[in-house]
Structure formats: C-alpha cells, structure tokens
C-alpha cells in the first residue's frame, strides 16, 4: 500500500475507534436489561403549547427516569376534548376556555405576550387594538391615518405556521386576513431587524425578545410589560392552559407541582413566556 509505515498504527487506531463506535451504537444498552417500571401519561392539544411542554417534559424526564410523558399536538379545541374524555391526562390550550368548555380543572402554565413594534424615530407611540387590526388587515395604510407623518405603512408579518403569527391573528385580526403584500420574515430576529432599519415599518414580536433596537407601542395606553400581561390589562396576550377532567393526583400532580418550580419557570422565561407568579 502507498501508506507510509509510520501512519499504520494511526490507521489501525481509527479503524478500532470506528468498530467501537458501531458497537456502541447498535448494541443494546446495558441499562435496558433491568426493565424499570414506567409511569406514563399524555398531554395533548394546542400546537403553540406543545413545544414548550415538550421541552419541560424532557427536562422533567431527565431527572425522573421512571416517568414517560407523551406530548401531542392537535389544537386547543382537541386538547379540551382530550381532557374531557380522558383520552389524555392533560389537555393543552392556548386560549381562555369558552363557557361551553368549562367544568374542567385548569392550570395556567404561563402567559404569551406579543408586542407591536415600530422604528425608534416613529412619532406614533400609542394605538388602539382596532387601529392595529386595521393596519395589519390593510384598511389603514398610511401613518397619517393614525396621527403620524404622511408615509406608507410597511407591514412586516411572520410566516404561515408561526405560533406568534397565529396568536396575533387570533387576538387582533377578528377573523380578517392579513394584508396580502406584507413583507414576510421567518424569525423574530429578522422582524426586529427589518423594523429597526425602516422608519415606516410596523411588526410584532414576542415580549421576551424586545430591546432598544425598536420602539414598543402602547396598546390602548397600556404598556407591554409582564405585570400588565399577568393582570390581563395588556390585550395582545393569551394564556397557556393545562387542564384535566378532575384535579390530578399522583405522577401528574407531581409534574404539575414541578412546573411551578424555579427550574421550570426559568425555562418558561427563556422561551419568551410570562410566568404566572
């Protein structure tokens, strides 16, 4: 072979490593031999709540090896149904429950708040929820219509499927469609950059990602702060609710108790949510 002899041990070593790696991957783990007793339960519902509960469940399961939590999507309404029928131990919803859906045991996980942002030099600093609805549905298209300078409003929207977008649509648009020719950005960061670069832009981002790059608008004279969201005076917010048929006991109750711990709260905050307390 064309390989210098001094490299031969090296090649042998790397082959050995390869084999060892293959064995490590494909061989059954030694700890699966002792079959542990698993306690499993399911959380199902809102696809906005799903990722955050998944994350929390993973963290919880890492510390509690005998617990298996299955997290499924399906939407808020199917989460309510799953809790009512008991097909899932926990239902998840990203909205207040309707009158017809009451009667379930509810646990508010956190609040999800959305801030409406403009360029720092924009003279407009307060809009009503109705004005925002009209701006994002295209009925108002000039800043002069809401007390600003005579300039076209450049609406920045999120992509279809984004949780922030669907929440904003649900709370603000009242069944109307977003203005069609709004610029679409694929992440909170790029919405912020786009707004920060354009004096006539307006966009929306989750509360946790706010900074000085953009100016946050007051909505009906209420500032977008954690306090105003948890006391429900800031309008563009929604609760993330877990529910069950009856007050949970056992493993589910322990998990719910852990959700109020500092560790879980930290995860909620990192994900841009407003904790309840």
């Amino acid at each position: 072979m064309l390989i210098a002899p001094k490299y031969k041990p090296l090649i042998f070593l790397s082959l050995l490593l390869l084999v060892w790696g293959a064995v490590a991957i494909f061989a059954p783990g030694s700890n699966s031999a002792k079959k542990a007793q698993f306690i499993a339960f399911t959380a199902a519902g809102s696809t906005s709540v799903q990722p955050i509960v998944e994350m929390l469940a993973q963290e919880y399961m890492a510390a509690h090896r005998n617990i298996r939590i299955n997290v499924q999507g399906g939407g808020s309404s199917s989460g309510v149904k799953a809790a009512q029928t008991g097909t899932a131990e926990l239902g998840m919803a990203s909205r207040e429950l309707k009158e017809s859906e009451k009667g379930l045991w509810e646990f508010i996980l956190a609040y999800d708040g959305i801030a409406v942002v403009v360029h720092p030099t924009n003279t407009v600093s307060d809009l009503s929820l109705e004005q925002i609805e009209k701006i994002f549905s295209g009925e108002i298209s000039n800043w002069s219509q809401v007390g600003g300078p005579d300039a076209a409003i450049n609406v920045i929207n999120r992509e279809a499927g984004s949780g922030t977008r669907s929440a904003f649509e649900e709370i603000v648009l009242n069944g109307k469609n977003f203005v069609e020719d709004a610029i679409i950005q694929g992440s909170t960061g790029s919405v912020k950059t786009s707004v920060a670069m354009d004096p006539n832009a307006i966009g929306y981002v989750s509360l946790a990602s706010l900074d000085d790059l953009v100016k946050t608008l007051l909505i009906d004279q209420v500032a977008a702060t954690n306090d105003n969201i948890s006391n429900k005076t800031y309008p563009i917010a929604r609760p993330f609710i877990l529910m069950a048929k009856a007050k949970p006991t056992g493993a589910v109750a322990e998990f719910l108790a852990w959700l109020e711990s500092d560790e879980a709260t930290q995860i909620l905050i990192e994900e841009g949510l407003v904790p309840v307390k």
Partner: protein
Amino acid sequence: MNRQRHEVLAKTMLQTTAFFSIAAVLLIIVFVFCEGLPALREVGLLSFVFGGIWQPMQGQFGIWPMLVGSVYLTLGAILIGVPFGVGCAILLAEFAPQKLVRIIRPAVELLAGIPSVIYGFFGLMILVPLLRELFGGTGFSLLAGSLILGIMILPTVMTVSEDAIRAVPKSYKMASLALGATHWQTVYKVILPAAKSGIIAAVVLGMGRAIGETMAVIMITGNVPIVPDSILAPIRTLTGNIAIEMGYAAGLHQQALFATGIILFMLIFVLTGLANLVRWKGAKH
C-alpha cells in the same frame, strides 16, 4: 502478489465511495418525492403548480407566485452576473498584465468564499435601505435579490468563462491578428464565438447557484407570495418558501413544502436541460 491485493483493495474502496455518493443522491430524491407526493395528490398537480394563492393555514396551496419568483430572480442574477463575469474573464485572459491578474483573480474568487448569510446581511443592512431611499416602497425586492445574487454568481461565471477563453487555440488568435484585425476585434469575432459553449456552461453553473440560493434570498426579497408586478416588488422563491415555513409546518402543510421541493427539482431539470440543448446546438455549428 501483495501489490495485486493492494490494487484490488484500492479499487473496491474507490467503488464504495462512488456508490455512497450515488446512494446519497438517490436517497434524497426518493425521500423528497415520498414526502411530497401525498400533497401533490391531495391538492392536484395543476392547481398546485398554477395556483396563485398560498395560504397554508386556510388550506390554499398554489406555488405559481414562487415559481415565477424563482425564475425572475434567476434571470435577474444572470442579467447582472453574466456581463460582469464574462467581462472580467475576457480582461483576465486577454488584456490584463500578469500583475493585475494576480490581484483581480483572487479578489473575485474570494467572493465565492463568503458565506451566503453574509451576503444576505449585507443586503439587509445596506442594499435594502438604499433601494428604499432611492425608489420608495420597502426596499425588499426582486431588484435587491438580483443584485446580490448577481454578485454571488460572479466568481463561478468568471472562472469557468476564463478557462473557456484560455482553451481557445492560440492559432485562431494569431490568424486573426495576422489578417489585420485589432485585438478587440479578434476577441469579439474569433475568441468569444470559439469559447461559446464553455461560456454557456458558465452561465448554466451560475444559474444553478442562483436558483438554489436560499439564505441570502430570504433575507432581502421580502418573501411575499404574490406574483411581482415590477422589479421593485417583493418576491418569494421556491427555496425561500421551503426554508421560511419549514420550522413550524405540520401535516399537509409540511408535505406541500416537500412538494415545493419536487417542483424545484423539476424546474432545475428543465432549465439545465434547456441550457444543455442550447450548448449542444451551439457546439454543432
């Protein structure tokens, strides 16, 4: 005997690597088609490709605006990148003194090494605001995308064209000069026609790069799924459609994004096929 064994070993190893590259391509194609075909069946090929409305949350899956967006953007990039790229190539191969070549070539080749997200960032921070100042509107536009992509395909177009020009036999040039033609006349009438098929290959490679580019494009084109009515209007490309919505898509929406990938595959097949046809016809004359 030992030598022979090594020969066989080397051959087998090389065959294995070749097999893996082919397997990777096939796997990707099979995967994309498997994931995307259900959506094509559900929506219908014609209403998927020619449908003008993309509202996945309302179950409307029409990618015509993105198809048009991708084609326009690629044409725009070619329109900007090719004249500059071929111009550079002619300069380097025919006119520039060695010293200049040693500066220009690495400089342009350096462009190829810049990650596309940097191009996108540059476009977002400099070009988009500039276009907004100059022409009004949002600045996110077909024009912004074309300018940035034009610069991105420059190195590909330049290096391949330069090779093509250098490959033209010296005797052609000498004969032309001996007949009394000037240097530029020789380049224009003799060398460029002789290098035509190589230059078309350069354009095809540039086109491939332009149509597949994603990151820079989603940062500066605005991603609006509407057929653009001017070069200042925002557009969304096929690649952009996939990249921007993949994060949260589920169910039929996700399948529709894979189906977008299938259409992108086909578009690339058609475009490279067309380009090869032109090249083949050109080579025959």
